[in-house]
C-alpha cells in the first residue's frame, strides 16, 4: 500500500481556485484580526507523549520525534502539556476531545459554528478517516455534539466532501425555484405534522420534538440558501485520484487523510466552512508504512505496554500522520487569501486528543498543539494541571474566533494571559 502519492501532492499544491466575487472586493475590506476558520484535528489513540512533549519549556526546545515532520513550521505552532479535561479514564475518553469533561456535551466546534457560521454555506463540517463505518456503542464514534447533545454524523468519503464544496448548480434559476417552493411548502407540512403531534401518545410526542427541532433548522438553512443562491460558488481544478472509489476502509486511513487535508485547505481558501473537524480514527487499522507491513494493528500498538518494538512501530504511524499534517500546514502557508496573507494566519488549527495514554486508557495530560490563527507561537507551554484545564485553552480559542465566552465545560479561567 502506498502511503504518499507524489502526483496527488503536486496536484493539490498547484490547484487553482476561481473566486470571482471575493477578488473584486479585495480593496474594500479592512483586514481584521479575527481568524476566519477553526479546524480541530483529533487523534483517536492520542500521541505518544514522551516523543511529543519537548524536554525543554519555552522556545528553542529540541524537536521530539513526532514533531520532526512539522519542524519547519515551529514558529507557527505552540505545544501545550499538562492540560486535560479531568474526564473519567477509560476507552471513551477520546470522545471528550471536543466535549470537555462529560461525554456528549456541547462540543467546542459546534459552539464556534453556532456563533460565527450561520451565514456560511456550511456552518460546520465533520470529517473522519479510518475506523469502521457505522461504529456501534452509545456514542458511535462521533465527536461533535450540538447544543441539544445530538451527535453529528461525520463524512468519511472524500468524494462526497468534494461534491459538496465544488459542484456548482448550473441551473441557478431551477435551484432558486426548488428552494423557494420547498420553503413555502414547509408551512403546510408543519401544519399537518402539528396536527399529527396532537393525536399521538406522549412518548411519541417527545420523539416528534426531534423532528420539529430539525425542521426549524432546515427552514433556517433554506432561508440562507435562498439568500445566497446567486453568489458565486467556488470552482477548482483540483481532482481527486481516479481510483473509482473512496478509501474508506480502516486500513486505508493513510490514503484518505491526505485527501481530506487537501479538501479542507481548499474549503478554507474558498471560505466555504468556518468550522471543520477531522477525526483520525484508527480502530481496525493495520498499516504498511514505507512498504513495510506492521505486524500488529494500530489499536494493538497503542497498547504497547512500554515494549520498545511496539513503541517503535507506533511512532512510525504517528510520524506518518504528522507528515500529512505537515503538508496541510505547508498548504495553508502557501495559499494566500484575498489580501495576500497566508491562510494559516487566519485559521486556528487545534491538534489534540481526548486520550492521554492509550496504553493505560488514562485521560490526563492530553497532548495538544495549536497552530496559526495569528497567535504568538514557537513555544512549548507547560502548565500546572492544578491551575489550568484544557477547557481554559478552548475558551481562549473561542475568544480568538470572536465568540464571547468565559467558560467551557469545567473551565472558567481561560489562557488569555498566557497565549495571545
Amino acid at each position: 500500500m502506498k502511503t504518499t502519492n507524489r502526483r496527488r501532492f503536486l496536484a493539490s499544491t498547484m490547484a487553482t481556485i476561481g473566486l470571482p466575487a471575493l477578488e473584486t472586493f479585495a480593496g474594500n475590506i479592512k483586514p481584521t484580526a479575527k481568524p476566519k476558520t477553526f479546524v480541530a484535528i483529533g487523534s483517536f489513540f492520542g500521541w505518544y507523549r514522551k516523543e511529543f512533549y519537548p524536554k525543554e519549556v519555552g522556545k528553542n526546545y529540541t524537536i521530539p520525534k513526532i514533531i520532526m515532520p512539522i519542524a519547519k513550521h515551529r514558529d507557527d505552532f505552540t505545544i501545550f502539556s499538562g492540560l486535560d479535561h479531568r474526564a473519567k479514564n477509560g476507552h471513551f475518553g477520546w470522545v471528550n476531545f471536543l466535549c470537555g469533561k462529560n461525554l456528549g456535551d456541547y462540543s467546542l466546534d459546534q459552539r464556534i459554528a453556532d456563533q460565527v457560521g450561520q451565514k456560511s454555506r456550511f456552518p460546520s463540517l465533520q470529517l473522519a478517516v479510518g475506523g469502521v463505518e457505522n461504529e456501534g456503542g452509545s456514542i458511535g464514534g462521533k465527536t461533535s455534539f450540538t447544543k441539544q447533545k445530538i451527535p453529528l454524523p461525520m463524512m468519511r468519503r472524500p468524494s462526497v466532501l468534494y461534491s459538496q464544496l465544488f459542484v456548482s448548480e448550473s441551473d441557478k434559476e431551477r435551484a432558486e425555484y426548488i428552494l423557494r417552493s420547498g420553503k413555502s411548502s414547509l408551512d403546510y407540512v408543519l401544519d399537518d405534522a402539528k396536527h399529527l403531534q396532537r393525536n399521538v401518545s406522549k412518548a411519541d410526542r417527545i420523539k416528534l420534538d426531534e423532528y420539529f427541532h430539525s425542521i426549524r433548522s432546515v427552514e433556517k438553512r433554506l432561508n440562507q440558501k435562498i439568500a445566497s443562491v446567486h453568489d458565486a460558488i467556488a470552482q477548482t481544478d483540483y481532482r481527486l485520484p481516479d481510483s473509482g472509489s473512496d478509501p474508506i476502509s480502516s486500513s486505508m486511513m493513510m490514503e484518505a487523510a491526505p485527501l481530506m487535508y487537501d479538501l479542507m485547505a481548499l474549503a478554507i481558501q474558498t471560505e466555504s466552512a468556518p468550522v471543520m473537524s477531522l477525526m483520525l480514527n484508527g480502530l481496525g487499522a493495520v498499516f504498511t508504512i514505507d512498504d513495510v507491513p506492521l505486524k500488529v494493528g494500530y489499536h494493538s500498538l497503542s497498547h504497547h505496554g512500554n515494549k520498545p518494538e511496539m513503541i517503535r512501530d507506533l511512532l512510525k504511524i504517528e510520524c506518518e500522520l504528522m507528515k500529512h499534517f505537515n503538508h496541510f500546514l505547508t498548504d495553508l502557508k502557501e495559499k494566500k487569501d484575498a489580501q495576500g496573507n497566508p491562510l494559516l494566519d487566519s485559521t486556528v488549527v487545534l491538534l489534540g486528543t481526548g486520550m492521554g495514554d492509550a496504553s493505560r486508557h488514562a485521560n490526563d495530560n492530553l497532548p495538544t498543539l495549536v497552530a496559526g490563527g495569528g497567535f504568538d507561537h514557537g513555544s512549548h507551554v507547560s502548565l500546572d494541571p492544578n491551575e489550568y484545564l484544557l477547557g481554559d485553552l478552548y475558551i481562549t480559542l473561542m475568544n480568538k474566533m470572536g465568540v464571547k465566552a468565559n467558560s467551557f465545560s469545567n473551565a472558567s479561567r481561560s489562557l488569555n494571559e498566557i497565549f495571545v
Partner: protein
Amino acid sequence: MIRNIPLACVLILTLCLAFQSAPAESAVPNEKTLGVHPQETLNKYCVECHDAKVKKGGLDLDSKLNDWDSPTNLKLWEKVLPVVLDGSMPPAKKLQPSDTERKMLAKWLDSSLRENTSFGGTLARRLSKEEYRNTIRSLFDLPEYQIPLGFPDDSIRHGFDNTGEGLIMSPTLLAGYLKVANQVADELIPLKKKAEESSIRVLKPDDMVANYAAAAMYHNALRFASSGRQIMRSCSWPKQMTVTSSGIYKLTVRASSFLPRSRNLMPKEPMLLELRARDLAVGEREMIHRFRLLKTISVSSESPKDVSFEAELYEGETILVYWNNSPLRYGGGNNKDLGKQVRKRFEKDKRFLAAWQKVVLENSHDPKEGTLFNYGDLRGMSGWEQFKKAFQDENLDMSHATMDSVQTKKLIALFVSQGNVLGEAFAYDYYEKGPALDLHEIRVEGPLRSVDGPKDKEVKERQRLLFGGPNEVPSKEERITNLLGNLLPRLFRKPVESRTIEVYLKMATEHWSMGHSYESGLHLLIRSILISPRFLYRSLNDGPMDDYDLAARLSYFLTQAPPDKILVDLARRGRLSAARPSKSDPTKMEYWVLRREAKRLIPTSPSARLVQSFTSQWLGTKQLGSIMPDPVFNFTADDLDLAKREVEYFFTEMLKANHPMTDFIDPDFTFTTPAFAKKIYQVENDKTKAKKDSGNKFQKITLARDGRYGGLLGMSAVMTTTANGVDTQPVLRGVWVLENILGMPVPPPPDDIPALTPDTRAAKTPRELLAAHTKEKSCMSCHRKIDPLGFVLEHFDPVGRWRDKWPDSETIIDASATLQDGTKVTDVIELKRWMLINIDLFSRCLAVKLIIYATGREPSYIEVKEIEDLVKSNRENKHGFQDLFVDLILSETFRSK
C-alpha cells in the same frame, strides 16, 4: 465430560422452572403469603452495603420496594433478580440467606416485576436507511433506486440499527432527507426539456473510432476489412457524438467498395453495411446482435454513393457501423472462422503461406501447441510489416509450404487460438488489397420530430401508475383530490383524514395559482410528502397498534419493505389481527391470519434482506468488509466472501428447514466450497474428491457432530470478525459469546478504572497477560465471566483455522475454562456440549435479538418471560427454529405497540 455441576447451577434451573410454572398472582403478594416481608430480607443481607450512604456499585436498595411505577426502579430490580437467583450476591464472604429466604425474595421480585412491567413500548421511529430505500423502491416503482453515497448512517442501539432509540432525527439528517426527496421527485417527474432544434452533424472518417484495427484510415476513408461478434474489433462509432434528444433523425451514409483484385475472393452478394444504435452505457465487449438495427445498406459501387434513411435514435445513444458479410471474420473468443479463411488463402498461394509460417512460427517460443506466444510484435501493422518483409525475401524457406505439413497445421491452429492478435495483422492484407468497405461520411440531421425514448416511456408509465392517467377527470382540483386520496394512504401506509388531504390540496392549488404547471405541482407534492413525519416515521399512533401498524411491522421485519397489496388489503378489512380459540387449548387465542401471512413472507433465500441485515448485525459479519487479514493467513477477499455466505446460507437453512435450535451449536452440516472447507476447517468429504473441479462449488457440506467445527462457534466469519485480522483477542471473543450466544451482556467498564501499569514482564501467553491485568477485584468481577469464554476459542486463529500452539511460540494453547456456573471445560467441544444442555440460554438470546430487531425495542421483564415460555415449549415439543420464529411473531410482545 462435564464435571462439577455445582449446587448453584441446579438451583438456578429449579428456580427458573418454578417461576415459569407459577401463575401470575392477581393480588400483590405480601408478608402473609411469604412469611416474612421481603424488605426484611433485604435489610438483613443487602442494605449494609447497598444503602444510600455506602452505595456499593452505585446501588441503593434501601426502601425502594414501594415505588413500582418508576421505570428506573423497575430496571433496578430487574438487575437485582438475576444475582439473587444465581447466588453471586451477597458476595461469598458475607452472610448468606437461606435457600428459602433467597427463593422467597426472588419469587416476590419476579411477581412484582411481572405485575408492573407491561407489554409494548416501542418509541416512534423513523424509517432506517435501508427501510427508506426499500419503501421508495416499492411505493414508487423504482426498483433500482439507491440512496446517494454519503447519506448518514443509522446509529446502533442494542446491537441493531433499527431501534427506536437509535433512529433519531437531526437537522443534518432532515436536510439529507430533503435532498433525497428532491432527487426522487426529479426521477418521477423529470424536468421537461426544451425541444431541441434540428441540426446537421457531419461525421468524417477521423471523427470515428478505429481502435483494435476494426477499421483503419486509407485515402481519407475509414476502411473496414473484417467483422466479428463483439463490437470491438468489428465496429466503428463516432468518437464524440451522443444523442441528447430522442427523436427521428435522417442519416445519410456515403460508402463504396474497394475491390482491386480478382473477384475470386468476393462473396457472391453485395457488401452489406449495417447501421445500429448503441446505448453508450453498454460496454464494448457486447455482441453485435444486442444493438438495435437501424438499417442495412447494400454497397456495390466502387465509387462513393449516398444512401439516406430515417431512424429513431434515443437519448444517450450513438451510431454503430458494421460490415455484416466480410470474408474475413475474427475477434471474440472463438476464431474458427478466421481459421477457415486463412486456410482458403493458404491453399491458393504457397509464398503467402510460407511467409506467414516464418513470421508466426519463429515468434512462438514454446514447442507446446499454442502457448507462450510473443504476440506484442505481431499485432496489427507491425505484424504485417514483418510479413511483407518475409514475403519479399528471395530466400524464403518454402519447404513446408504444403497444406498437410506439420508447420501449416500448427500455423492454422495458432490463427484460431491467437486470432485476436493475428487477425489484426492479417486484416492488413484486405486493407491493402481488398475486398474492403470504405466509409466516407455520415451525416446526421435532426431531431426532425421528437419521440419518447424507452426511458421516457418508463417515466410516463410510472406516472400513470402513481398519479392516474391523463384527462380522466375534468377539473384539476378533482383530479388532485382523487390522486391524493389514493396516493397519501399508500405513502403514509395508513388511511388519512380528509383534513390531511385538504392541507396538501391547498399546497398544490396555491402553487398553481402562482402560475406553475400541473407537473410542478405534482413535483412539489412529492418533495413535501417525503419529508412529512407521516412518511418518515413508523408507528406514530395514539393507543394500541392497529392492523395497519401490524402489517407494517410484519412487513418491515420480514422484508425491510412496506406492506404488499395482500397485507394492505387484510389491514383494510381488519382481518390481519383476526383471532379464534385455539383447537388444542380453547382458552388461548390463535392469530391464524397473522400466522399464515408470517409463513408466506418468511425469507427462504440467503440473499433475502432479513437474512443479510439480521445476521450481519447479530453476528457482526457486517465488519467483514473492512477487515483485511494479514497475508500470512492466506485468507483472500474471496474467502471473506465465502465466510459471509456461509453464515447467510446456514441461517436460511436453519429457518427454512426448521432445524432444532441445538443445530445452531452442533449441526451436521454447513455451507461452503470443498476447497474452503479443506483449507480452513480441515474437512474433506469423499464425494467431493471424486469430481474434479467441484472444489469451488458452493454447496452443503456434511460435518460430524460433536467436533471442533460446526455451528456458530468456530464459524470462520465469526472468528474473523472477533479478531482484528492480525491477532486474536480473547476479551473480544468472550464478550461476543456472552452478548450474542448466551444473552448475558456485560456492562461497560466502570468510569473509574485507574490507569493500569501491571507488571507483564513474566507473562508469556495471552492468558497470563490478561490475568496480570485483571487481578484487581473490580476488574475480576466481569472478567471472570468474559475471559474464560475467549480462551476456549483461542484454538481458532484470526480467520477461524484451528491451531494447536500460540503464534510465535512453542507453547500448546490452554483452552480450558471455568464457566460462570462452575462447570469446567477443556475445549470448544466441551463448551458446545454444555451449551446443548443449556440450549435455552442460546434460544432465549436469539429470540430476544429477533424481538429487538422486529419491534425496535428491548423487551420488558414480562415480555422476556413470554419469550422464555416460548423457548421452553419449543424445546419440550421438539419444535424447530421456524416454529419459534413464527411463535415470536404471534406473541403478545410482537403484537403490542
